[in-house]
């Protein structure tokens, strides 16, 4: 130690609170537990979320909706744990007396520590979002990033951090951080267990990115604008929760001045009000026909209008046109449908175009949801056949090969049936002609083949059970029935003879005026 004169007190220098706060934050940023937890959080995201998200089709809606819950679950535990650890720092390091007798109010000091923890969490999260969105931007063929899901996940981090920090501050112990880490995961993961239907208060959970019963709708942002109703409520809830927790923490840590206490009470009340309002709003949500949650008080009717887009079309006998967001599926879809389309191209009443449509949803009782096409598959002048790609439908993800197979086995028969007028209540002749055309196109669903028939080359796998009226398999002529025998005879005719007969008799066939015996 040296006995040197301290610098003489100069004239008072005006303190700049902003600069002091920035210096305090810089110190806290340098020495924050979240800095060490960042690799853990990013690794968790990489292992549990990134690959899962990237396995979904390159549609912005699916990637964004996958990002939100997975990022929240991956980051919540490390962030909550780090925040609890930092919150208990003064007690663990026995600096409570030393820092409590300083002039800066304790809440301000704690806020700096919390802010540093949250900043690092957000930095790590934003890096992950940037990677997911950058890769998606390279893969997606149409549309742009959906920011609301990313914002919800971002807003959840300050809230989780505030809750963890409050736990660490109020219950300072070495065990608080690990317990908070575990609790954060289970609370979030279990928060969706009580969701029942689309009108559930529990939808406010940040791990809910879409109607919980059906998952994210690929049509959001492709056929219809993304509805931010639920995300707005979630951000409101999370912001309110953050503010309320920080306000309550200020009160509980003995805010000094009366004005500070009053402010803390006001902030806590405002936060609780915002969070409560958001929960109430989420409870009024309902599944809209586009597969998103609409909250009447927040809903913008203008966003119900369909998006304008220029479809991408194939050069098949009948063009197959898809939404440009699904352009990567066009070659496989067109190839799967081409043999079928060759059979009906140019026939009277045959569709001029096969056009992809959006899925329409309907909330049923409880958790049940109905979905399908909004109208008839074949409509308009000239007639257009509207198809739903399997990748659009709720359910497990499908590969391109599976998708092509399902297109051949479900959509191909449906297109032919729409031309022959086949369907429930149709005549035996209609069943026979439809089945014959499928045989000629070598696209007979396996359930229409006689038992023991090898399937390779001349048929497609039987359709999987798909819910909804538009995904049901074509029934057709059962093997062994007279209609099936007639179908085999008709399929065996030369293509020109078949076409000639169809040109002459299709109108009568569609009207149900032909019997099996009148088929060639």
């Amino acid at each position, binding site marked *: *130690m040296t006995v040197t*004169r*301290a610098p003489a007190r100069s004239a008072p220098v005006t*303190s700049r609170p902003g600069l002091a706060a920035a*210096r305090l934050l810089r110190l806290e940023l340098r020495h924050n537990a979240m800095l060490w937890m960042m690799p853990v959080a990013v690794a968790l995201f990489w292992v549990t979320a990134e690959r899962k998200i990237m396995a979904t089709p390159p549609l912005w809606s699916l990637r964004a909706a996958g990002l939100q819950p997975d990022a929240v679950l991956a980051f919540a535990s490390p962030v909550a744990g780090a925040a609890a650890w930092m919150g208990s720092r003064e007690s663990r390091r*026995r600096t409570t007396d030393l820092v409590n*007798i300083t002039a800066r109010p304790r809440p301000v000091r704690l806020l700096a520590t919390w802010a540093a923890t949250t900043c690092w969490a957000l930095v790590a999260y934003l890096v992950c979002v940037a990677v997911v969105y950058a890769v998606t931007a390279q893969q997606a063929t149409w549309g742009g990033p959906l920011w609301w899901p990313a914002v919800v996940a971002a807003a959840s981090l300050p809230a989780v951090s505030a809750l963890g920090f409050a736990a660490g501050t109020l219950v300072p112990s070495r065990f608080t951080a690990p317990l908070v880490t575990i609790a954060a995961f289970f609370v979030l993961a279990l928060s969706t267990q009580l969701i029942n239907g689309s009108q559930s208060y529990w939808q406010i959970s940040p791990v809910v990115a879409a109607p919980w019963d059906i998952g994210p709708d690929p049509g959001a942002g492709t056929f219809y604008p993304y509805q931010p109703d639920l995300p707005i409520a979630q951000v409101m809830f999370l912001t309110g929760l953050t503010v309320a927790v920080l306000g309550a923490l200020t009160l509980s840590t003995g805010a000094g001045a009366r004005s500070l206490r009053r402010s803390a009470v006001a902030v806590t009340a405002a936060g609780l009000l915002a969070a409560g309002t958001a929960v109430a709003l989420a409870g009024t949500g309902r599944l809209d026909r586009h597969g998103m949650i609409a909250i009447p008080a927040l809903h913008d009717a203008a966003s119900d209008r369909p998006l304008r887009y220029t479809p991408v079309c194939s050069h098949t006998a009948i063009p197959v046109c898809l939404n440009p967001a699904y352009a990567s599926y066009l070659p496989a879809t067109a190839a799967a449908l081409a043999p079928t389309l060759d059979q009906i191209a140019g026939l009277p009443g045959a569709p001029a175009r096969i056009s992809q449509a959006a899925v329409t949803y309907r909330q049923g009782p409880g958790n049940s949801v109905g979905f399908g096409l909004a109208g008839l598959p074949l409509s308009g002048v000239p007639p257009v056949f509207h198809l739903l790609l399997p990748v659009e439908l709720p359910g497990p993800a499908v590969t391109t090969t599976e998708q092509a197979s399902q297109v051949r086995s479900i959509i191909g028969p449906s297109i032919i049936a729409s031309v022959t007028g086949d369907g429930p209540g149709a005549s035996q002749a209609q069943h026979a002609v439809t089945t014959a055309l499928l045989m000629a196109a070598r696209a007979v669903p396996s359930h229409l083949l006689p038992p023991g028939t090898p399937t390779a080359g001349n048929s497609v796998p039987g359709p999987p059970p798909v819910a909804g009226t538009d995904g049901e398999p074509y029934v057709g002529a059962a093997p062994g029935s007279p209609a099936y025998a007639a179908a085999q005879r008709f399929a065996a005719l030369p293509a020109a003879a078949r076409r000639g007969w169809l040109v002459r008799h299709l109108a009568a066939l569609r009207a149900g005026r032909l019997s099996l015996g009148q088929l060639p």
Partner: protein
Amino acid sequence: MNVEITGLTRRFGRTMAVAAVDLQAGPGVFGLLGPNGAGKTSLLRVMATAIPPTSGRLRLLGRDPRGSGPRREIRRRLGYLPQNLGYYRGFTVAEFVEYFALLKEMPSARIPLAVAAAVDRVGLADQSRARLRTLSGGMLRRVGIAQAIVNEPELLLLDEPTAGLDPEQRMTFRALLRDLGQHATIVVSTHLVEDVGAACARVALMDRGKIIFHGTPGDLTARGEGHGTGDAPLERGYSAVLAAARP
């Protein structure tokens, strides 16, 4: 008077840590002596505004610390070194002192120079970038002193400041105390009587929560002439006063 205490009492449950203490202290170094458990640390914590008194009157730097505004003003002008210094292991010496400069609401522009000066005064200029976890106990004690003096306090409260310091550092520290005491009120709690004799202008002796002696080190020495036990005159005075106060 920078410290005015009248009838101050502090209880912890049934334990009376500080019992109706009266004390005044102006600029200079004031020694607070006493055996373990005498109530020195409790009295210092009350004076540091770390804990409120149970009863009695306390004025620091001419202000009543019960009001939040005056208390904040007092804290801006206060330096405190607790008996058990807690610290953040990852901070460097300079960062730790800067942290407290910021918490003491020092003007931002003054902080870099003040930190450097405080670190230099405790002889840690060469270790200013060393992490606290790498320092010895004595060095940590000096870091604690640096954070206490970084704001050039008008009231400096030091609880066992020389614990862990080697004899050379202790002598230098006493010189530092004398220097600081020219402008500020310094209250040093210690059980090492030689620290008091070397640095303090006035001294109080506490036992069982009460002040049983208040005067100069010379007065205390005089009380030990022909009485008490100890190797040094001041120690004999210390033990004589204690013996007289105990039944």
